[in-house]
């Protein structure tokens, strides 16, 4: 049972791990399209919510205050009007104190202060009277109507009312008639109203967070609908860039994104068409080179045969004929070599080459290359024994022969070959002691038919040797580089190959 669960669980876990690796949870980046969209929507929602609730708050707060105010004014006026009738002027402090506390008892226990000339009576003598500001006092003195002022005191809002007390209750409404000289002030608390409006603010505030969250969610949803085609397009573009020219995207709807998808498909189609044409042309050109080279081989085979006969008999010919015979023989050999190299290059171009890999002793292989070409005396070889690697020996021979041949031909002696193995890499350096390559020649040294020495347009080589050497190195997963110029040495070419051995492979 356990094994069964395990065997079932494992692939699932592996698949999950695989898909997790492929679809790495990506946090919305703030500078991405999605992040920007979400931020914009949330900010817009915030601004509109704050503005709307701000305006509503203002309005309702004003309405609440106005109602409270007018109620207070009404109460105050009625109270004062009723009690003013019992007031005699000039009055005495006792009457005034009673007057103040009478007014106060009708106004939900507000602080009431009555003032007559220099004398002041208060419903609550201990209360702070600074809430009645000098401006209000001045206003009461100059105006016969009820004056009022909102003040903040001790962190709380208060409504302060003030009115001169008239003797004539029968006076017109709002006016105190004949003045008694008594001024009465009432300090009414607005704390309840403030609490109401504060409650309003709080409920608005607590409503704001869900609204913003909701807008963020909506923005994300909107971003998804917009971004999904964009992302699909991006994916398709990436695949197009990697050479998958048949890729197309779905053109859905009639919006700008659909238009973009349409344009993408058109572009991909055009690209596919022209790349296909180019490839066909290239393949034709390659086939042509390969065919021509192959066709040249047969006549060259005959010529090589016959010209070797001519050359052997050259001694018995007249000097001119002997020269002609030797020239024909030499040029035929060159042509044969050029054709061989052309065929080799066209094979590389057609990717029709394969490695035949065996474990090879590097020192032995390099020595073999030098010996086979009679170069042993002309080349100093630094070949540590015992370096073995899995290589195609024939192709290694081509590389070494081309590098050393190039050094012997274009550089100056001594030519040295150095082999090293370190850090999983084989390096083979071929150095000569000539003047080195001209800086303008260095980047082209691996180009086909590039001749570094333009005066010597007809050198021994085919002009393809270095290109072939590089292709062979690449086939092994390696490179050939021209080392940077150094004093006391000429050109130094370094072949680097991955060091694969039997046990490692």
């Amino acid at each position, binding site marked *: 049972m356990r094994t069964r669960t395990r065997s079932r669980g494992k692939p699932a876990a592996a698949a999950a791990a695989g898909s997790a690796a492929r679809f790495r949870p990506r946090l919305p980046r703030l500078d991405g399209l999605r992040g920007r969209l979400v931020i914009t929507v949330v900010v817009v929602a915030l601004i509109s919510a704050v503005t709307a609730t701000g305006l509503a708050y203002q309005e309702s707060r004003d309405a609440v205050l106005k109602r409270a105010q007018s109620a207070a004014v009404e109460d105050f006026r009625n109270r004062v009007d009723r009690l003013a009738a019992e007031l005699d002027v000039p009055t005495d402090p006792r009457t005034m104190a009673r007057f103040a506390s009478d007014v106060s008892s009708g106004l939900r226990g507000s602080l009431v202060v009555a003032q007559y000339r220099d004398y002041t009576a208060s419903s609550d003598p201990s209360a702070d009277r600074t809430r009645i500001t000098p401006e209000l006092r001045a206003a009461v003195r100059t105006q016969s109507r009820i004056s009022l002022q909102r003040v903040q005191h001790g962190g709380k809002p208060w409504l302060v009312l003030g009115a001169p007390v008239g003797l004539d209750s029968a006076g017109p409404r709002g006016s105190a008639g004949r003045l008694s000289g008594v001024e009465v002030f009432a300090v009414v608390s607005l704390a309840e109203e403030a609490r109401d409006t504060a409650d309003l603010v709080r409920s608005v505030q607590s409503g704001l967070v869900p609204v913003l969250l909701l807008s963020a969610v909506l923005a994300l949803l909107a971003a998804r609908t917009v971004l999904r085609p964009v992302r699909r397009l991006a994916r398709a573009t990436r695949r197009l860039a990697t050479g998958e020219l048949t890729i197309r995207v779905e053109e859905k709807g009639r919006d700008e994104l659909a238009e973009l998808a349409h344009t993408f498909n058109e572009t991909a189609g055009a690209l596919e068409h022209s790349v296909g044409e180019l490839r066909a042309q290239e393949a034709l050109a390659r086939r042509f080179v390969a065919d021509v080279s192959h066709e040249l081989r047969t006549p*060259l085979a005959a010529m*090589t*045969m016959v010209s070797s*006969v001519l050359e*052997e008999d050259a001694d018995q010919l007249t000097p001119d004929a002997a020269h002609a015979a030797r020239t024909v023989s030499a040029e035929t050999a060159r042509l044969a070599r050029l054709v061989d190299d052309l065929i080799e290059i066209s094979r590389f171009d057609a990717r029709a080459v*394969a490695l035949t890999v*065996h474990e090879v002793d590097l020192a032995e*292989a390099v020595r073999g290359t030098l010996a*086979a070409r009679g170069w042993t005396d002309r080349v100093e070889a630094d070949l540590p024994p015992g370096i073995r690697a899995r290589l195609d*020996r024939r192709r290694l021979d081509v590389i070494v022969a081309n590098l050393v041949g190039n050094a012997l031909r274009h550089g100056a002696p001594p030519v040295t070959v150095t082999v090293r193995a370190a850090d999983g890499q084989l390096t083979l350096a071929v150095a000569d002691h000539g003047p080195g390559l001209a800086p303008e020649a260095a980047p082209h040294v691996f180009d086909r038919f590039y001749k570094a020495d333009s005066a010597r347009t007809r050198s021994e080589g085919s002009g393809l040797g270095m290109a072939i050497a590089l292709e062979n190195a690449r086939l092994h997963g390696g490179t050939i580089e021209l080392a940077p110029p150094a004093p006391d040495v000429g050109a130094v070419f370094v072949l680097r190959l991955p060091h694969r051995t039997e046990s490692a492979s």
Partner: protein
Amino acid sequence: MPHVLLIEDDTSVRDGMELVLRRHGHEVDAVGTGEAGLELLSRPRAGGIEIAVVDLMLPGIDGFEVCRRIRGRGQLPIIMLTSRGDDLDVVSGLEAGADDYVVKPITGRVLEARIRAALRRAGPVARTDTDDFAGLVIDRAGLSVTKHGTPVPLPPTELRLLLELSAAPGRVFSREQLLTSVWEHDFLGDSRLVDAAVGRLRAKLEDLPAKPRYIQTVRGFGYRFGPV
């Protein structure tokens, strides 16, 4: 001097090669098709022919088929002549039983050297003893191989390779060593020559060519005979 059968369809190449071979003292029978070459070999007086040089691309039956048919009837050394030199052609040629291959164009001197080397391989080997390796009997004097009493006909190169390997059972030979001693090639000869010949030998000697008993591969080094 050796009598050479040359099968080459291109007239100029055929004439050039014939000219060169004759100058080196060979007797040459030059034909343009594989059919003509095989017909020549089947004639009673064809015993004089000692080596065949066969072009791969021929009208009618191609060089591979010619090679297979020659192998089917005897041990004549075969040098395959190819203008293609693609890896596939070389390998196919060797597997069809060619002892060597040369890629055109080739100079007269090189062709002559290759012919001489192939003929040397076909010549007698100066060792005189008979070894019995678990039923595989190698008669070094009579140059014959029998397995459980049944003769195993081997072309010269394969015989020489077997003699070389079995002379020192248990010793590991690198491909390069075998190329030098059996094919008399410098290392520029292809190690695929060795691999192909070993493959053909195994097909003839081993009970299970996929699990060889006699000729074993030593990974990274080469081949070894036995221990059986």
